[in-house]
């Protein structure tokens, strides 16, 4: 019988599941911790980039401020300005001073383009009295922070949106004072943010998608983000999560979508000195690419390991179950009767010892079988001898009996006139005894025949058999009150002749031992006990003492004196023999003077072929 959910499958599955569980757990742990480590590395990279840029920005702004301050302190500038403010407007010397002033300032405007333009503002009212950009002259900048603060000291107006430029602007200013310290003007220079743009957007390293940019408090780009080269983006507001957070809460790191809608790791830093937000970000895909590759390789490795685990588990299971299968086969062989089957399996583990034990069992079985056969042979022989003996003896015994009986009869029949009545009586007694002996011999013969007779099983109806048996026993029933109750007798497999013999003997006993009763109550029926069909014959006769139950079915065993009840004592032995040959069991229950019940089954005992 091939098991449907065998050990091979179980083991393989267990192996596979275990391997899978371990791989999944370890895989996930290592993937996520690898990813986290990668993220941490990325964030620290971003942080160092951001800090570097912040420092560079700060330095750049400081340098510009310093520069403007230096220019504001240059003697030629102060001289020119002094003439400009003290002289009469329109005079040639004022004009010369004006032009000279501007020429001076122009050197800082080109070609290094550090400053877009310069303006010199009146200390009261903020009117632009000189500018490298002629359009600016005559304008009033009195409300500009760079003017208001520049009157007092060096100042940089942090990045604001210039409506005239329609672009972000940054202006550095410084007071222009005479040697005596009198304020004669404010120098304001608009910084060229191109260099700032370079500083911020300059990429370090090989990262493709890393970039930094500045956003002001109106959500406008101050520097051009590299990844979107179209300057149009500078006009639109940026409301991505990192920018929103930066403008609300200051500094931090977040994984979110950026202005392109692409998921990034963004480090945002609020720079209070310049009133802007510095965003340093990198695409999540790029940052975590190697973790993805790592994840992939874990997956591949896991797949292979799982496969290997399956194979290993399967191989192991097979190698474990092979001996078991061999054992199963061996047990089947032995069960079939092939007691010489031995296992070849030799290993040093428990299965090996099991095989050894099995083999030893086999040896023992063989020996025992041999012994049994010997015994059986012996028994066979002795049985045969017995049978032969009983046959010949009974046969041989019969012959002289015939003679005794015959001659006695002759004497009685033909020589009665010559014999005294007493002699006749003696002869009659002799005849009775010989007849009795004849019966005994008959029964012996029948009993011995039983051993040799072939048994033919067929479907029989015990009911029919019982009625035939009762007919044959009519002599016993004449002149008596017999209350016979025959219940349901289910059909069974039996030898009809032998079964009849059984019922004959049982019913004859029942009739015999109820002789003393006014009404002989005999019950024939069947019961189901433990799923077996148990037939019974019950009588209300004299019964017997249960302590003699062992003798009940013995040959020539009689529990009653022959004066009370005749019989050879073979009847029940015959019944037992027949029942045993059917493979059934017979037993009885009784009480002294309480009647008896005889039960028998036709199967479920040990078949005795």
């Amino acid at each position, binding site marked *: 019988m091939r098991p449907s959910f065998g050990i091979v499958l179980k083991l393989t599955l267990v192996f596979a599941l275990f391997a899978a569980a371990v791989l999944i757990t370890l895989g996930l742990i290592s993937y996520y911790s690898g990813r986290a480590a990668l993220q941490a590395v990325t964030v620290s990279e971003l942080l160092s980039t951001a800090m570097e840029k912040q420092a560079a920005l700060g330095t750049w702004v400081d340098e510009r401020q310093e520069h403007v301050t230096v220019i504001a302190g240059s003697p030629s500038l102060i001289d020119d300005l002094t003439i400009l403010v003290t002289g009469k407007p329109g005079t040639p010397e004022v004009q010369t001073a004006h032009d000279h002033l501007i020429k001076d300032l122009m050197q800082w405007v080109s070609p290094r383009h550090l400053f877009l333009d310069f303006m010199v503002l009146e200390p009261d009212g903020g009117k632009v009295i000189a500018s490298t950009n002629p359009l600016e002259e*005559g304008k*009033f900048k009195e409300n500009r922070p760079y003017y208001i603060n520049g009157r007092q000291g060096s100042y940089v107006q942090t990045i604001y949106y210039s409506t*005239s430029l329609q672009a972000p602007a940054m202006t550095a200013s410084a007071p222009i004072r005479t040697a005596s310290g009198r304020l004669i003007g404010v120098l304001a220079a608009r910084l060229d943010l191109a260099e700032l743009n370079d500083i911020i957007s300059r990429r370090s390293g090989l990262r493709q998608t890393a970039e930094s940019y500045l956003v002001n408090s109106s*959500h*406008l780009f101050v520097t051009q983000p590299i990844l979107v080269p179209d300057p149009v983006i500078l006009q639109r507001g940026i409301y991505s999560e990192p920018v929103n957070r930066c403008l609300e809460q200051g500094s931090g790191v977040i994984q979110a979508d950026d202005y392109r809608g692409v998921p990034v790791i963004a480090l945002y830093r609020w720079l209070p000195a310049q009133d802007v937000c510095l965003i340093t970000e990198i695409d999540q895909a790029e940052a975590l690419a190697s973790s993805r590759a790592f994840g992939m390789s874990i997956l591949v490795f896991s797949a292979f390991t799982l496969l290997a685990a399956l194979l290993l588990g399967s191989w192991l299971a097979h190698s474990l179950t092979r001996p078991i299968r061999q054992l199963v086969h061996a047990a089947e062989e032995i069960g079939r009767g092939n007691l010489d089957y031995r296992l070849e399996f030799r290993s040093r583990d428990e299965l090996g010892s099991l095989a050894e034990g099995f083999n030893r069992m086999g040896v023992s079985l063989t020996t025992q079988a041999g012994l049994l056969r010997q015994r059986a042979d012996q028994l066979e022989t002795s049985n045969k001898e017995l049978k032969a003996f009983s046959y010949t003896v009974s046969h041989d015994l019969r012959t002289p009996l015939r003679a005794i009986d015959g001659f006695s009869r002759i004497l009685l029949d033909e020589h009665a006139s010559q014999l005294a009545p007493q002699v006749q009586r003696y002869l009659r007694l002799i005849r009775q005894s010989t007849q009795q002996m004849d019966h005994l011999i008959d029964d012996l013969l029948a009993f011995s025949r039983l051993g040799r007779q072939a048994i033919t099983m067929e479907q029989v109806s015990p009911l029919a058999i019982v009625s035939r048996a009762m007919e044959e026993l009519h002599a016993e029933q004449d002149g008596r009150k017999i209350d016979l109750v025959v219940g349901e007798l289910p059909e069974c497999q039996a030898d009809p002749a032998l079964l009849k013999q059984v019922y004959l003997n049982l019913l004859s006993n029942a009739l015999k031992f109820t002789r003393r009763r006014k009404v002989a109550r005999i019950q024939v029926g069947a019961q189901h006990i433990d799923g077996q069909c148990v037939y019974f014959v019950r009588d209300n006769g004299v019964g017997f003492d249960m302590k003699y139950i062992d003798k009940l079915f013995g040959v020539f065993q009689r529990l009653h004196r022959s004066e009370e009840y005749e019989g050879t004592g073979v009847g029940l032995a015959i019944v037992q023999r027949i029942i045993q040959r059917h493979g059934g069991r017979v037993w009885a229950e009784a009480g002294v003077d309480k009647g008896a019940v005889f039960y028998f089954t036709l199967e479920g005992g040990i078949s005795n072929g």
Partner: protein
Amino acid sequence: MSLTGCFKSAILTALILAVSSGCAPIATPAQELTPITVQLLWTHQAEFAGLYAAEQNGFFSDAGLDVTFLQGGPDVDHWDSVMNGSAQFALAGADELLLARSEGKPVRAIATIYRCSPIVFISLADSGITRPEDFAGKKIASPANVVPSLHAMTTRVGVTPDQYTVVSLPSDLALFAAGDVPIWGVYITGFVVTIQQAGYKLNLINPDDYGVHFYADTVFTTDDMIASNPGLVRRFLQATLKGWTFAVENPDQVPGLVQKYRPEADTAIENAKMLASLPLVNTGEDHIGWMKAEMWTSMEQTLREQGVLTSPLDVTQVYTMQFLNEIYQ
């Protein structure tokens, strides 16, 4: 309840649902929509994006208001409707409001949208007009709300209003290009965009460069309205500011919004207008709509210095922070 009773009420419910689903949505009894009219400063364009956004996204109806817009334009006096009560809210320049108040009109500003003024004076690049000094003896096309800035600016450089002529013209490209009127007082977020998109090069003269710093489009209503219906005023303003926040954060949706009111509006032009407006509305300081006391004071001062205001005005009468404080607290 018996089975038939259940059955009946089920039928009834089903009927009611069927009928009501076929009908227009009925306002919940708790909040009926109050009809409100808003007078706009000029013709429908991106300049009023926030109001359109509030209307189209249902911010007004969520606040229980059913808002109608009245267009402004060259032939429309945008003060009329508020003064005669047909509009409950309107827009005007802060300078206009100061003037109006000084004339006794019971008006009060509740928030200012354009905290940086978009007003700019333009001339064709080759006209040689680059400064306010050059305005003397010229014709200047300027809508009424721009005039106070014009006066203030020119006075600063010594040119008095009687030295030039102000005319009112529609924002017509051909008219401008014709050159009959060399100087136009316009919005950098409005007509300037149209002209520049058409390819013209312009000189821009910014009042901001001449000591004239005014709040531009300011939302105002009457004292009466504030006194009798403060809840409604606050709800209106809150929805308006919400609409402006939406417009500032989603400028590409603005052309679509404008086209709901003026279908022939050009998408590219409205887009450019909105982008130009962003830094004027969302200055990065405070909140959208915020007003500062010192600005009102300096505006009043400027107008007095320029002679636009003839006598001192108590600015606290001209505006109120009441609603802004409530909304942004």
